């Protein structure tokens, strides 16, 4: 009897829900909201929730409200895989945004490809979209674009011998591979190739070795706090060689941790969100960046981060694809592939069957840290 009543109640709920609301556009999201990659997942989740609210307040997409089903993967690929299956089988989502890290994305990718659900990853690893799979996309610019930006600038300054100092995690080792390839391609010399652990607290040994190798410039590739320690150690050792950082530290937090005095003169490729108040008014992204930052500050009380932008762009791209093509998984997929000049937080996206990222060198600005702030350099 009890069971019957339960079934009845559930049936009522399901039916009433179906009749009262218009069928929503249901989009899944996998973010590492807690755990070691929480600095990625948290702004991504915040941004997505904010943007969904904003879209629905404006009447949804073609009259359909958007519903985001967000799960926390805690940065664990196994969990990401389980949750992806849950999103597809139970929540019946038409597309998935995330996961936040390259490792999780590579684990989830085979499932979304098999189930034919478009996956728009918020992770930067180049492996995600190279080689291209019809169902997998990503919004962060490839690491090698950031690397190329650095090397183009450095070559312009006549620097020929480089030392690499990379963190021994996914981000660092991917950056290390890309940079080594780029150096070889451009005929530049690699004189030292050192690594450090994500939680290491002193890099003077590596830097001493690098100094002895006599490079023209040092390129450090990592995310906080490692690069901040490197920056302080460079000052401690009195090394005067130009220091480049990756886009992974393009936030004020890095300057704060490294201290403005030690960070003075450090150069890095930064996404335009970092310098949104310094780019030209004519920049196609200028307005969107200003609005995103203002909205984020208003809702969460902190400045918007590049990472949140990855989720922002992913949803924008899906919305654009739905508007162009229709709301089924297949239509979204082919719509994404036809993305052309969609202005986002990370850059201006133009995708094709052979390019599932759609960003180029214009996604970054080279900046130099001057008096604790960013200054754009040409």
């Amino acid at each position, binding site marked *: 009897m009890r069971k019957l009543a339960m079934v009845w109640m559930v049936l009522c709920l399901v039916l009433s829900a179906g009749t009262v609301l218009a069928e929503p556009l249901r989009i899944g999201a996998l973010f590492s909201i807690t755990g070691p990659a929480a600095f990625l997942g948290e702004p991504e989740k915040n941004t997505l929730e904010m943007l969904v609210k904003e879209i629905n307040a404006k009447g949804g997409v073609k009259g359909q409200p958007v519903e985001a089903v967000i799960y926390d993967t805690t940065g664990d690929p196994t969990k990401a895989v389980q949750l992806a299956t849950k999103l597809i089988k139970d929540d019946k989502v038409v597309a998935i945004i995330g996961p936040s890290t390259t490792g999780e994305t590579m684990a989830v990718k085979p499932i979304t490809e098999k189930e034919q659900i478009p996956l728009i990853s918020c992770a930067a690893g180049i492996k995600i979209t190279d080689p291209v799979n019809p169902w997998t996309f990503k919004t962060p610019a490839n690491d090698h674009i950031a690397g190329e930006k650095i090397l183009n600038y450095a070559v312009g300054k006549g620097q020929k011998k480089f030392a690499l100092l990379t963190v021994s995690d996914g981000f660092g080792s991917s950056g290390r591979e890309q940079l080594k390839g780029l150096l070889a391609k451009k005929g530049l010399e690699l004189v030292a190739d050192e690594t450090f652990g994500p939680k290491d607290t002193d890099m003077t040994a590596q830097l001493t070795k690098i100094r002895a190798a006599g490079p023209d410039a040092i390129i450090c590739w990592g995310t906080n706090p490692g690069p901040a320690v490197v920056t302080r150690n460079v000052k*401690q050792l009195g090394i005067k060689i130009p220091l480049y950082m990756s886009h992974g530290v393009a936030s004020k937090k890095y300057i704060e941790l490294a201290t403005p005095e030690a960070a003075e003169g450090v150069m890095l490729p930064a996404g335009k969100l970092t310098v949104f108040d310094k780019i030209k008014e004519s920049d196609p992204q200028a307005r969107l960046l200003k609005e995103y930052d203002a909205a984020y500050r208003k809702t969460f009380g902190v400045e918007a981060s590049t990472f949140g932008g990855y989720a922002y762009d992913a949803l924008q791209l899906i919305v654009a694809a739905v508007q162009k093509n229709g709301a089924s998984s297949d239509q979204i997929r082919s719509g994404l592939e036809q993305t052309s000049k969609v202005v986002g937080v990370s850059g201006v996206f133009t995708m094709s069957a052979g390019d599932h990222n759609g960003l180029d060198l214009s996604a970054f600005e080279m900046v130099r840290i001057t008096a604790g702030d960013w200054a754009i350099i040409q």
Partner: protein
Amino acid sequence: MDFSQQISQYILSGLATGAIYALIGLGFAIIYNSTGIINFAQGEFVMLGGMFGVYFHTVHNFNLAVALLLAILFAAVSGVLFERLAIRPLRRATPLGLVIITIGGSILVRGLAMLVWGKDTHALPTFSGDEPLSLAGATLLPQHMWIFALTVLLIVLSKLFFQFTITGKALRACAVNQRAAGLVGIDVRRMVMFSFLLASGMGALAGIIIAPLTMTSYDVGIMLGLKGFCAAIIGGMSNGLGTVLGGLILGVLEALGAGLISSGYKDAVTFIILLLILFLRPQGLFSRGESERV
């Protein structure tokens, strides 16, 4: 820059890092010596010290010295609470059970710290400036001098404490035989609590003096705890010089390994040493083998 300058930089950097490991290792040794427990939550007290320091200094704007004392106090109280709530209720548990409880406790403390203070990395200002000091062709920061000085001070104090005070002697008695210590009128429970107080306070001090250099966040305790544990193992879990030498050796070998072999193997060096010691000289490098009387 010639080779000898490189070597001296490696050694000095290694000594500086090693002194940190030594301070953390001492906390392990103190608790082990009075309770027989290896407290894997020791790294979390280091984290708590740093985070409380940041909290009092940057959120409440106390000056650095006051923030430092408050942080040590709060971390020490957390240590006592940890003992009261997690260790004492299970006095009859096996050593293995207690060790596992300390691991569980450390995960809990880390989780709470994450919830309360967030996931960001924080830095404290240095105690006396950032101007590097030159020493034998190598450079160090004034903060490193603080680390050396405080480490030496703590070793001397703890040596005096364990040798010459009643409480210190009582703690040592508990280490030898808790039952016998109880029979001669030592309040064993209080001594255990006291050892947690000491160890967590010491860990917290380590956490604060390294925070300006290495920065701190809710999850720094794991790696620092492991390195401190290695230092204590190399030193044979001694309360004094052994653990300190263990820490210094570890730091120097790490720096030399990173500089001369490859930085990719830096942590591997630590754990290879740990394994070798555990296999070949489980009693530590410096102590003679202990004979168990039956």
